[in-house]
Every structure is written in C-alpha cells, then in structure tokens.
C-alpha cells in the first residue's frame, strides 16, 4: 500500500462515528439555527401552540362550540362592560362562545392547510420530477396545462369550482389541490432540470442505477429543501384561501366552526359588536403570520445561498 496523502489529522481525534449520533447532531444544529433566527423561532413556537390547541380542542374548550344560548347573545369580551369570565372572548349572534369556536376552528384551518399541501405537494413533486428528468412530450403537455391553470386568479378559480361541486370539507380539499400542485410541479421540474446536468447524475448512470432510483434517491434529496420551504409557506396560503371560501359561504358550512364563516357571521354586527368577526380575524392573522415567519426562517436555514447579508 502506498502512503495516504491526508494523514494530517492526528489519530487521537479518531472518534467513533455512528449514524444516530450524526442524526442527533443535525437536529441539534437545526434547533440552534432556528433559535438564532429569532422571528422564525417565535413563528415556530406559535405554530406549535396552535397545533397543540387543535389536537387538544375537546379538553381545553370551555364550552360546546355549537351550543347556542339566547341570554348570552352578543356578549362582549371579558374586559369590556357586561363581559363575563365565563365567556372570555365574548359570544356571537346566537350566544355561542367565541373562544371555543376559535379553538375548534383551528382544527379545520390547520387540517385544510396540511392536507392540501400534503396531497398537492406529493402530486406536484412526483409529476415535476418525472417531467424535469425525462422532458419530451410528457413534460410539454403538463407544463402547458400548468401554465393554463396558473393564468387564472386562484380565488376566482376556486369560487368557480366550488360552485360546481358544492361546499363541503372533502370538496374543498379537492378544489384546492386541483390547482395548487402546479406550484410544486414547476419548482421541482425546474430544480430537476438544473440538477440533471450535474455530473453526479451522470456518475449514477454510469454506475448502472435505474432512472427511478436516480430521480428519487440521488436528485430528490438535493432539491427537497426548496420543496419543504415552499410547502411551509403554502400552508399559510391555503389557510387564508379556506377562510376566504368559507367567508363566501362556499367552504366549510355552518354550524361547523371555521374562522372564515365566523368572520362572515359577524359582518352584520360590525358596528355594534365588533368582536364577533374581529377576533377570529386576529387568530387567522397570527397563525398565518407565524407560519410565514417560520417558513422564511426555514428557507434561510436550509438554503444558505439565499441568505441576505
């Protein structure tokens, strides 16, 4: 054997490496970076809080979100005149507790956001990867179809489809996914095209790896970070879109508590009882803002090339 060219490191530093240790190191590093990026950390904490609220809704909601009581009709929040500690954030036009309704509404919002992003991200990335890797006619047809879908304003498109298929949770998810895979498709396709020209792909081909393996095990790990960032930011977007559709009466139907329909219900009482629609609006604002802050921070951590000075 000949002399190795890199015997620089002294052997005392010869630590035993194990895979779990390296994984833990990665997680540790990620959390450290997240804490350093303060706004993102704040966003992450608030998002986590909302998720916990959604999971624990039946245990922490003080009232039944569907139970009306005429005595408490339009009761203002606790800190105002006529407010009661029992109805911390007041009650709506038929006396349902707003806090409980917001807590249950969190479930709808987060579920719509996550499910839609999950499905459309999966479909979009799958199609985008194949289109970017193989190009050709398959890519041309899908890309033109994607351009076609992108040329519609999202909300108007969704209103149009919802009025055809009718409201409901399942229909809402289908309609949102129908267009939203396009963003993931375009991102993964573009990344795939630029990654495909790199030499490690050629090296994998020379090794005799199959195309499927090259796409999913060689290239995808290299582009997954931008897909994760897009997915995070899209969650907030879909929560707003769901709220908009519910506001218009096309999404989740009353009496199921959803933030959008709660805002709509309070519209008529805006001048006399502002809290009925303002408080769900604030909840929506905080959740979506936190998701976006977290997403931006995630982008900085996962893709240092984009970090601004």
């Amino acid at each position, binding site marked *: 054997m000949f002399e190795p060219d890199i015997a620089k490191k002294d052997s005392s530093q010869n630590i*035993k*490496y194990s895979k779990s240790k390296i994984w833990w190191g990665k997680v540790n590093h990620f959390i450290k970076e997240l804490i350093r990026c303060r706004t993102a950390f704040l966003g992450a904490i608030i998002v986590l809080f909302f998720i916990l609220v959604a999971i624990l809704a039946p245990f922490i909601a003080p009232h039944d979100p569907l139970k009306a009581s005429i005595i408490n009709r339009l009761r203002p929040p606790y800190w105002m005149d006529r407010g009661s500690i029992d109805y911390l954030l007041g009650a709506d036009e038929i006396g349902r507790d707003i806090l409980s309704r917001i807590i249950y509404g969190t479930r709808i919002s987060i579920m719509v956001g996550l499910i839609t992003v999950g499905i459309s991200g999966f479909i979009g990335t799958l199609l985008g990867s194949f289109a970017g890797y193989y190009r050709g006619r398959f890519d041309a047809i899908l890309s033109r179809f994607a351009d076609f879908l992108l040329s519609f304003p999202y909300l108007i498109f969704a209103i149009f489809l919802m009025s055809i298929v009718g409201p409901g949770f399942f229909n809402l998810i289908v309609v949102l996914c129908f267009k939203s895979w396009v963003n993931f498709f375009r991102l993964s396709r573009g990344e795939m095209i630029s990654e495909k020209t790199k030499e490690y792909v050629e090296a994998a081909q020379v090794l005799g790896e199959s195309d499927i393996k090259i796409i999913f095990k060689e290239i995808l790990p290299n582009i997954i970070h931008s897909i994760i960032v897009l997915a995070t930011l899209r969650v907030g977007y879909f929560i707003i879109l769901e709220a908009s559709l519910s506001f218009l009466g096309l999404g989740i139907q009353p009496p199921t508590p959803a933030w959008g329909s709660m805002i709509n219900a309070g519209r008529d009482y805006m001048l006399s009882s502002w809290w009925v629609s303002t408080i769900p609006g604030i909840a929506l604002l905080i959740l979506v803002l936190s998701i976006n802050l977290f997403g931006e921070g995630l982008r900085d951590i996962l893709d240092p090339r984009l970090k601004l000075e």
Partner: protein
Amino acid sequence: MLKINHLCTSFFTYRGIVKAVDGISLELKEGEVLGLVGESGCGKSVTLLSILGLVPYPGKTTDGEVWFKGENLLEKSSNEMRHYRGNRISMIFQDPMTTLNPVFHVGEQIRESLKVHKHGRISKRKEKEKVFQLIKDVGLPSPEQIYYQYPYQLSGGMQQRILIAIALSCKPNLILADEPTTALDVTIQAQILDLLRKINKDIGTGIILVTHDLGVVAEFCQKVAVMYAGKIVETGLVDQIVYEPRHPYTEGLLKSIPKIGNKKNKIHSIPGDVPDLATLPKGCAFYPRCSQHMPECQKNEIPLQKIEKGRQVRCLLFKKL
C-alpha cells in the same frame, strides 16, 4: 477483451449533423492500458460514453460495434446495459467535486454502488466492512471516519480516491478514466496515477485513459491512440508514438509540452483552431493547420494505414519516408 469496430456517434443539432466520433476502431487486451489523446472537443469523452451507451441527447451512436468479452454492447437493451455499467465497466470522471452527490456521506455512496449490482442478500454490516476495505484499498486512512464525511469535507485527491473506490466496488474488467487527473495538482496527480497503476497490476483491470497530457500517457500507458476531429490519426505503442511520431498532429502535440530549463524559446503551439465538426473540410481534417500539407491531402478521404507492426497512421506523408 474490448474491441471497437468503426464506431460512429453523431449529434443531430439544428446546425446539422456533428460527427463527434467518426469510425473509430480500438482494441484493448485484458490488463492493458490504452491512452486516448487529443485536443478538447475531438470526441474522446463521447467515445467513452458510446461504449457505455450513455450518449446524451441529441447524440446517437449510428454505426459500428463494441465487442466486450464476446458480446456486442450496442445491441444490448438498456436494461441489459445497466448490468454492465458500474459492474463490468466503470468510469472515473474528471472533476470529483461535482461527481459525488453533495448530500450523502461518501461511504453511503460507495455502499450504494455495491447495492446496485449485488446478488442475493448481504447484511448491512458486511457491506460496510466491504466499504471500509475499499476505502483502505484506495489508500485512505481511518475508513470509519471517512465513511461519514460529506464530499465537501474531503480534498480533491481524497474525493478522486473515493470515486476510484466506487469504480472498483464491483471489480470491473474495464475502467474508463475520463481525464482523472486534470482537476488535481501535480503531486496528487502522480499519486492517483500510481493508484491506478497498482489496480491495473493487482487486479488486472483494463484501463482506457483519456487525457490531453502526453506526459501522463508516456508514463502510464502501453498503447496510445491519438484522435483528431472524431477520427484516430495515429495509433501505436507508447514508445513508437512518443519517440518517433509520424503524424504531423502528434508531432505538434509532443512539441507543445513545455520543457524544464527551456527559458529562451516560446512554447510551441499548433497554429489555428480545432475545426468545426459540423463543417469539416474534404480530405484531411488537419489540413488547414498542417505545416507539411500537400495538394493531395484535400482530394480524398485519407485512410488509416498500417506502417509497422501495431502501428497505424492516417497521413499521406509516411509514404515518402
């Protein structure tokens, strides 16, 4: 072991058909080292990719035969070809930095190449031990540590060794080395060539070494083929080519090597540019740049003719000698 007959690979571009490889014939016996020399863009790399059947779009191998161990690779289906790639024939690339996948540990990448062509089930631990052995074989210390390094944590020479380990993982009969030392500095270059030579001797792997460095060729190869504009212009044993080049192009290449201690004279260069492969002149492609050209050179296609044992030249000059 490997016999290439009249291999033609063309690229069908908007500007016309570009014959990147135009009727190349080569032969490589078991355990031999063949140098493939020529300027950038003369079709060396495309020749290698044609052997593996991986010519990128819009290129296509249009004619010829590639016999490897008695089987014509050009007639294989893409699935059958995958069995050859990496397993019986593997390749080493020019730039190790970009050839390794940046997001995986280098050890995992070596293990991956074992997994692609494994027969039957091998336990993960055994595979890892094999990887450690491979890392040791290519002359890297503390394989347990190297296994969990990312490519960017290694130096260029170490990366190239990892690539060689990947290429060796399935004990191939033939290694195609596409300028394996171009991206490395001179001392590392010598070490990598030593490593390749050792592999060649110990395992008896045949090597086709693509390079434009005739110094490397003289040092390392037994046979040489000089390419120009997609054609072989001269082949022969190393000593024949290096000490008595016949083709004016080979001669020019040899003169272009800078010599230590030569301060007065400028480095020799061949005048003119590499010809555009889409619009090649009739007759000899080297004609416009040749110092000894004759009117006959432009008339007809010049054949590759045998002048001595194991020696062929594509030039009309040798008749005069």
